[in-house]
């Protein structure tokens, strides 16, 4: 899966960061021991720190999922009244669906019922779903 690759990247980046920190601490104690306080941190430790930071950031961004648009109204461009008008806390159930979608076994077995197709509204799974 892609996310385990990026998790690996974040892990490697964090490990490299910790390694760079440890080497910097070791370098500092070495400086103190050899009394050469004027030497700056070696450039490879600095590079390792910066590079591992960038790798960690990049890995985290790829784990954390999709970005959203800054423009608040752009998310709503595809929203329609079909879904906006539905208030789940106020749903009523006394609508035609109670009769329309009634399973065929519950219908009375009159000759006219035989002519009815077996619930033509029943959709095929998966392929029809948008």
């Amino acid at each position, binding site marked *: 899966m892609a996310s385990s690759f990026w998790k690996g990247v974040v892990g490697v980046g964090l490990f490299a960061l910790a390694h760079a920190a440890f080497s910097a601490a070791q370098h500092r104690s070495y400086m103190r021991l050899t009394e050469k306080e004027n030497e700056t941190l070696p450039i490879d430790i600095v590079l390792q720190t910066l590079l591992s930071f960038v790798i960690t950031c990049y890995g985290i961004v790829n784990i954390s999922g999709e970005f959203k648009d800054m423009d608040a109204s752009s998310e709503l461009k595809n929203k329609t009244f079909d*879904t906006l008008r539905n208030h789940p806390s106020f749903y009523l159930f006394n609508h035609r669906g*109670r009769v329309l979608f009634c399973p065929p076994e519950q219908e009375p077995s009159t000759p006219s019922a035989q002519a009815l197709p077996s619930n033509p509204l*029943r959709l095929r799974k998966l392929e029809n*779903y948008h």
Partner: protein
Amino acid sequence: MLSVSEMLKMRDKLRKWREENYRNSEQIVDVGEELLNEHASKLGDDIWIIYEQVMIAALDCSRDDLAWSCLQELKRQFPDSHRVKRLAGMRLEALERYEDANKLYDSILQDDPTNTAARKRKISILRAQGKSSEAIRELNEYLEQFVGDQEAWHELSELYINEHDYAKAAFCLEELMMTNPHNHLYCEQYAEVKYTQGGLENLELARKYFAQALKLNNRNMRALFGLYMSASHIAASPKVSAKVKKDNMKYGAWAASQISRAYQMAGRGKKENKCSVKAVEEMLESMQITMS
């Protein structure tokens, strides 16, 4: 039998339908029933909310057996939950046992007077029984206490529109527009209510809010048509000055050209495009407001 990846896809679809308030109950029952019967173990903690979603969809589709089994599972897992009691009440409502449902909700409210869900269901019971004025009154009282409940404001505006009390419906939509300034649909619905109220000031206001809805979302066709109609209406009114008439005819002409262009772009590449475009132009012509 679905594979694991298909099952995850279905679970994500169910989540999308749940979060965006889709009421495609037949599909939910189809997909949800299969997920629950065959893949219950792989769903983890999601399973309870899927039970709730499938139960409500089953009530819509008159699948009382499925609704009952979902309710039993939820009762077993959450024995003293108000949320599950509310679902039991909804099932009673679907079976039209309104007194029993009312008693259940009253017991929830006795336990927890701040429970908004039970109050909203009681309002829905009033609405289902056709007592719209009482439902409106109860909803108003509810909104005095819980001013921020946007669903309730929208429901109240719908109730007022059904009663043809457009001024109050406009007030509710104004509340919604205030809290959601970036939502073009509320602007557009407000403009439609103002247009329905009629009268010159309301038409001007309607035109402005249709324009605002278009500014927020330039693909909103209803707002474009609304702009065209309100501008034409103002231009055809006898009481306006010549300048206003000219301006509105200009707006109307712009809206008409945008509509034709939108239909042309939509029909690009299809061979019936020319006839459709001509049909749109004829429709716009026939919608011209003439002074009678």
